[in-house]
């Protein structure tokens, strides 16, 4: 009888504190994900890649062919379970935007002001390293 009462009391305590428990679980998962994403370099390396690619496009002229070293980017993406490497680099000519995704769910984007279009982008694997290749064309002739 006494044992049953104890069980009831434990149940009551858990029920009363359910909202606190849920909040603590959400908070812990959120913080863990944030620190993990920062620690494996995904966020900072996404920023690095997108900034450098944007700068290359801004400095380029129509007809230029560009190779960008993507070895570390693909390595980080693989460790973050990004299975399709074609998703890592994305060019949007309509919005003049470059996006890089090295972890699931989020990507880092930046706009380029040079009035050109990026064409024939392709991630070449093992040449001997992984390389992002793309061509710069005049806007309107793509």
């Amino acid at each position, binding site marked *: 009888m006494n044992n049953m009462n104890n069980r009831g009391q434990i149940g009551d305590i858990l029920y009363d504190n359910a909202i606190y428990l849920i909040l603590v679980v959400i*908070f812990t998962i959120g913080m863990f994900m944030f620190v993990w994403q920062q620690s494996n370099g995904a966020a900072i390396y996404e*920023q690095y890649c997108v900034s450098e690619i944007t*700068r290359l496009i801004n400095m380029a002229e129509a007809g230029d062919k560009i190779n960008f070293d993507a070895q570390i980017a693909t390595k980080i993406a693989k460790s973050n379970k990004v299975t399709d490497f074609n998703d890592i680099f994305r060019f949007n000519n309509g919005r003049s935007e470059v996006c890089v995704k090295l972890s699931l769910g989020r990507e880092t984007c930046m706009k*380029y*002001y*040079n009035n050109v279009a990026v064409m024939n982008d392709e991630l070449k694997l093992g040449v001997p390293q992984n390389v992002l290749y793309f061509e710069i064309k005049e806007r309107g002739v793509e």
Partner: protein
Amino acid sequence: MSSTNRKGEAGSMLMLVVFLFLLLMIAGGIVAGTFMFFGTGYEVRQLDADVLNYKIKECMTNNYILMVVDSFYEVCGLNKEVLEQAGYKINICEGVCSGNLPGIISVGSNFEVCKFTGKGEGYPKCTISSVVKEGKSYEIVVASLQMPRRVSE
């Protein structure tokens, strides 16, 4: 009796507020610590302003000033929408730019912020150069605020 119960409920809600406040404080500490350890981000605004300034200078050197003023974006190969939306400021003045007054070509406003460069991370990074063309001197002021932004897919 009823009044006592209400007081009890208010006390429990107050505890929730205190609890949320504590979580926020801890989250703030963890985020600040993480950023201090891994760095806040990749600073690109100064280089961005340098490149844009160089492109404009090249454009003014290689074209007639009248053409540049008439159709700045077409002649210099720049995207108007991006420059206006992504936080760039451009001011090209005959002689020297003074304060907030727009010059012969201007994108954005409040060019005074370039004087605050270095005072705070939130201010844009600026590059100022000058070019002599057709016997006149022009000052080119370029400010960049664009940073890589993390977005959900």
